[in-house]
């Protein structure tokens, strides 16, 4: 299924009243470029599209709704609307059908109302095609509508998250929810009975279940609180970091700061990689225990001395059916045959023999030396990395001291607030980490003392186990067996499918990046964030251009793979790119989506616009408010464009779709 935006229309809202038509590849060209003066409220238009497509508008608070009201007109409008017309093409050969999703604002009560209209008629709610439903959430919509800097959202180590959009887009988040629902349904089923059988009442498990359930709810509330705080603190940090960065820039320390940050990020990646290598080696006991190896070699020698494991069951089976002579050379009598047949099951199978043989082959005298050496070397390297980390941290502190020494009181306050906030975030993060910590070994927790358990995840697993026991107790053992098998299948499906999707997305992103950058950058992995690098080696982040291209490659790979294809909508599509990257992206943009809507600013025109024009037709959209300041633009409109003016509106916008108009007028700096 392919979704395109055919048009948007607004009235009474803080963006200029207007109707804009878009095209897609099927109709004319996939590339729509919108230019509008500052203050025309492009961001509002993007927010409205997100609000309708993700259904998040339904969660807007009264004060958020109020913010959409047009401000600078008298009288203030009491109502407003946003109309989003989608073109929906189910199959390649189908004619697209139209779906209008409307959001009506009542500014007297600050409420909204949703309606929709399609071939089947008018509906008093947003009615989407069922195929679209899985994609209608903030995470999925955030993937094809680029608002703000995606680098932090997807690429940056620590804060970036490329896995959540992948899970959300391919339905894995939804299956994770199913896992919770299955557990809940099972628990509800048992709780309906109230554990009132005699066996249950008298059993300790019932008591444990009650106190652990209470503890789980307590930890769940705590976790929700810290997660909420995390969102608030992150937003606050972003704002302060902006101020902090501004101060560094003002005192010409920004490059130094970027270098230190990049070194610290790289160092963190190396430490994590080295630790994993060490953990892998530590799982092999031969790498650190000489005794195990010596005993193993001695076992091998003993087996060899006795010519073991010898011959397999199938050998004796064949021998008994094909031969009439015994090993000793005598006749193979019936009684001997019966004796062999009775004892044959005690012989090893072919597989068992090959396992023992392969274990024997692994046992090599003095094999400990190279592995132990490798482990020692890794520990030395890890030590060096920690020393390096200390040096970078000293550099960071020196830089902060330098900034504090030359800065004024206001800057010092920003630095202090930045430090305080980082400390708060560290504490909050460690609380979340504690609550989400998981250890498979649940036996270490005393069932009489749930208060000793500080992790929600562990608590949840213990409650789950207690419910399993409870089900046995109350005669639900078959239900429990069915449930645990289904949960195992679900968890295995989640793990395996995520791995396979990630692998395919890495391959597909790299195929695109190969075309965009001639292999200068590649996606190495999708671990929490999108990891990029060169020649298989990860780097903290690439240049602005490399980051942006990696994100384009990753995002479009996801969009192409999904069953429903959405348009790609980007605010400031090439701000972060240098000249060459703009040219490179300009050449490819018409291929990466069936519909691309870019909200362009003046500084992005260079290199990008000429290359786009060389690669095919464009749909030019110039939008501006009807005011005295835009008179030069209005004077240049043709009659047809002027006729679209709605005389009743207090804040109407003109739209021109002409190429020459777009080229002639640069609009970015107008207020």
């Amino acid at each position, binding site marked *: 299924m392919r979704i395109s935006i055919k048009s948007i229309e607004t009235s009474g809202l803080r963006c200029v009243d207007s109707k804009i038509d878009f095209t897609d590849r099927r109709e004319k060209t996939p590339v729509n470029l919108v230019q509008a003066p500052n203050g025309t409220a492009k961001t509002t238009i993007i927010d409205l599209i997100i609000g309708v497509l993700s259904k998040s508008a339904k969660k807007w608070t009264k004060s958020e709704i109020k913010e959409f009201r047009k401000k600078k007109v008298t009288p203030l409008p009491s109502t407003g609307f946003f109309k989003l017309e989608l073109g929906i093409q189910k199959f390649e050969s189908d004619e697209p059908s139209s779906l209008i999703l409307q959001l009506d604002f009542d500014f007297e009560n600050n409420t909204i109302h949703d309606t929709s209209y399609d071939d089947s008629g008018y509906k008093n709610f947003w009615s989407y095609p*069922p195929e679209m*439903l*899985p994609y209608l959430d903030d995470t999925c919509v955030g993937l094809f509508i680029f608002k703000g800097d995606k680098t932090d959202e997807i690429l940056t180590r620590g804060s970036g998250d490329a896995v959540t959009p992948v899970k959300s887009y391919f*339905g894995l988040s*939804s299956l994770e929810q199913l896992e919770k*629902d299955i557990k809940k349904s099972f628990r509800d089923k048992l709780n309906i009975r109230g554990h009132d059988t005699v066996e249950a009442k008298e059993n300790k498990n019932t008591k444990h279940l009650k106190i652990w359930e209470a503890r789980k709810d307590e930890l769940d509330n705590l976790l929700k609180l810290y997660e909420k705080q995390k969102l608030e603190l992150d937003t606050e940090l972003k704002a302060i970091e902006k101020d902090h960065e501004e101060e560094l820039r003002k005192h010409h320390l920004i490059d130094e700061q970027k270098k230190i940050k990049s070194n610290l990020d790289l160092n963190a990646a190396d430490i994590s990689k080295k630790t994993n290598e060490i953990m892998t080696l530590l799982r092999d006991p031969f790498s650190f225990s000489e005794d195990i190896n010596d005993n193993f070699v001695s076992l091998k020698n003993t087996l060899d001395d006795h010519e073991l494991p010898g011959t397999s069951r199938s050998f004796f089976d064949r021998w008994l059916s094909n031969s009439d002579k015994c090993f000793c050379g005598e006749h193979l009598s019936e009684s001997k045959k019966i004796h062999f047949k009775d004892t044959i099951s005690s012989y090893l199978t072919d597989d068992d023999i090959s396992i023992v043989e392969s274990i024997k082959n692994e046992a090599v005298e003095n094999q400990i030396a190279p592995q132990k050496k490798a482990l020692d070397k890794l520990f030395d390297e890890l030590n060096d990395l920690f020393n390096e980390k200390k040096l970078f941290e000293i550099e960071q502190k020196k830089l902060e001291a330098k900034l504090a020494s030359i800065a004024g009181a206001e800057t010092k306050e920003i630095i202090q607030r930045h430090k305080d906030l980082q400390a708060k975030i560290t504490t909050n993060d460690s609380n979340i980490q504690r609550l989400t910590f998981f250890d498979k070994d649940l036996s270490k927790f005393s069932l009489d003392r749930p208060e000793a358990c500080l992790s929600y995840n562990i608590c949840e697993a213990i409650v789950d186990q207690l419910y399993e026991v409870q089900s046995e107790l109350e005669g639900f053992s078959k239900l429990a067996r069915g449930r645990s098998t289904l949960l195992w*299948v679900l968890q295995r499906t989640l793990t*395996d499918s995520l791995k396979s*999707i990630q692998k395919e997305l890495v391959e597909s992103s790299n195929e695109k990046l190969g075309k965009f950058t001639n292999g200068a950058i590649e996606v190495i992995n999708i671990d929490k964030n999108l990891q990029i690098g060169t020649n298989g080696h990860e780097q903290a982040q690439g240049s602005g251009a490399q980051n942006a291209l990696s994100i384009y490659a990753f995002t479009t790979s996801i969009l192409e793979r999904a069953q429903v294809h959405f348009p790609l909508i980007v605010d400031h599509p090439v701000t972060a790119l240098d000249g060459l990257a703009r040219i490179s992206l300009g050449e490819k943009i018409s291929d990466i989506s069936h519909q691309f809507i870019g909200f362009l600013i003046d500084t992005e025109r260079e290199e990008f616009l000429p290359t786009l024009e060389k690669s095919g037709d464009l749909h030019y959209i110039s939008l501006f408010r009807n005011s005295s300041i835009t008179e030069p633009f209005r004077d240049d409109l043709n009659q047809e464009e002027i006729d679209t003016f709605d005389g009743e509106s207090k804040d109407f916008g003109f739209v021109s779709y002409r190429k020459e108009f777009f080229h002639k007028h640069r609009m970015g700096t107008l207020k």
Partner: protein
Amino acid sequence: MDSSIIKALKKACEHEGLSQETCSAIEDLFERQVSNVLEQSDLNSKLDAIYYLINKDLDEN
């Protein structure tokens, strides 16, 4: 539903020795959940049917 989910599901069912009928019932449940059309009221009856099929398979194995 993405093909990798179906592939992983079939592999997991096979590993547990579940029959094709059981696997199809689980696939239908997953499909409904992923497509956002699984009503909470339907969940319990679907789960009961799946538990019955799983137990039948496990008893037969």
